[in-house]
């Protein structure tokens, strides 16, 4: 079981979610982060004082999947998030040692199996 963490542009989320759901993997958690990277900051100005904001808003996706699904999920994210401009983001894959579904108490890979939405 792996955890995919992707930092992406807001615009990409909708199609990523749609494609993953179509693949039976609608499960994910999304949050807002501020990111800095190769993309430049921008300048903010109030009453004449000026500052550079180095952090830009990004979305962070967290998607736990079974080992077999890592590649295809990564590919979907890559395809939909790619614009070729700095700021497209990064994807990290981490290992998961244990998984539990709270509703049923089930543990292990079964929890992350693909299923039809709803």
């Amino acid at each position, binding site marked *: 079981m792996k955890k995919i963490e992707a930092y992406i*542009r*807001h*615009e990409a989320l909708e199609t990523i979610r749609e494609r993953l759901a179509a693949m039976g993997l609608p499960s994910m958690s999304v949050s807002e982060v*501020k990111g*800095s990277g190769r*993309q*430049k*900051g*921008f*300048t*903010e*100005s*109030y009453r004449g*004082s*000026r*500052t*550079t*904001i*180095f*952090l*830009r*808003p*990004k979305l962070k996706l967290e998607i736990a999947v079974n080992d077999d699904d890592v590649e295809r999920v990564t590919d979907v994210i890559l395809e939909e998030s790619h614009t070729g*401009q*700095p*700021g497209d983001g990064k994807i990290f894959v981490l290992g998961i040692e244990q998984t539990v579904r709270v509703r049923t108490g089930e543990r292990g890979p079964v929890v992350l199996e693909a299923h039809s939405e709803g």
Partner: protein
Amino acid sequence: MEAVAIDTVWVAVAGCLVLFMQAGFATLEVGFSRMKNAGAVMAKVLINLSFAFFAFWAIGYALAFGDGNDFVGATGWFIDLGNPDGVESLSYTGVSEEIKFFFQATFAAVTLAIVWGSMLDRVAFRAYLPFAIAFVGVIYPIVVHWQWGGGWLLKNGFQDFAGAGVVHVCGATAALAGALIVGPRIGKYRDGRSIPIPGHSMPLAILGVLILWFGWQGFNAGSWFAAVDQDIGRVLVVTNLSGAAGVIGGLIMSRVLLGTMDIGMMGNGAVAGLGAAAGASGFVDPWAGAIIGLSAGMLMVVLVIVVDRLRVDDPIGAVAGHGGGGFVGLIGTGLFANAAGVEALGGREGLLVGGTAEQLGWQLIGFGAIFGFTFVTTAIVFFAIEKTIGLRASEDVEIQGLDIAEHGMFGYPEQFIEVFGASSDDAIPGISSPSGTSTNER
């Protein structure tokens, strides 16, 4: 002398209330805007209010109320305090020329505010100045002149007490032309569907409606330009019953047609009902006001849907609220105008209270004339602006948000975790960045 002082106090107070409607437009519009454009909306209202005062002072007032022909006036530039008689069209009231100007200038500012309501989230700041000059300086004054300036509509008995047609239909028509020409917000219509792009704050939006409701008391009841011997109580009662009925009409139709109790529709219902009362409140009985307001609120919901189906993106419902309300106010006057109102204000009684269809016909002609003239002229102006300096913000600016892109700052700065770096005095705020380009990025 004292009678004049009483009228002066009343009209001055009413003008202040109408002026305060700007705070209502600002909060209503900001509530229906995206968070990233919240500051720009407020800047827009401030600057348009300012431009409106100047444009109406320099030329608008003269074209609107000045002595001239049936179509346009031509005296009273810069108010012309040297002329002790003032403009003839307003000579029925004893208040000073300045009070007349002040009251009417606040109306001009309201009309201008209505226009831009339909175009939230995507207009470039630079477009405001030329449009304000053209609209408050020329287009709106011509419409005003036809009726309140003693022009051809008034002479034919068209009735419009406080501006259901002159202000609300005129403003909404320009709002329609503008929304058509500027086009929908990015992402509003996709795959043949209309995607909701909700504003960011219903509390601010409805606070705006309540401020407008308050200001509308002055808008309608101040339009007697007098308090002595005029029935301001009747106007107040009709106005409030109509506004209240508008809320209820908006709620009913929202429930019936949309299956929800849409909060914005209730607010818009108030706007429609109050806008309808602008036409009718000097002419009709309270019960008729209730019918008119209810109709206005109900029609408004239908118009919101129609406008959306036509793929005209009007985030605030300005076209439906002010246009639908104003239309119903004109028609309602043609149906329900009573003898007392007609005696005081002119025109003929309404069809349903013993009058003839003639009045109703003139109400329709008046509506058509205002709609047609405003639509064509404002479309030309919007088109000219778009083709020269540009009406619409660039795609990058729209995506980034007008606040940071046009004003170099955020409307809600603390929605962002700030990491400050070296201030770089050579950077152009929000547009270029300290090193490299930040176009179309989040």
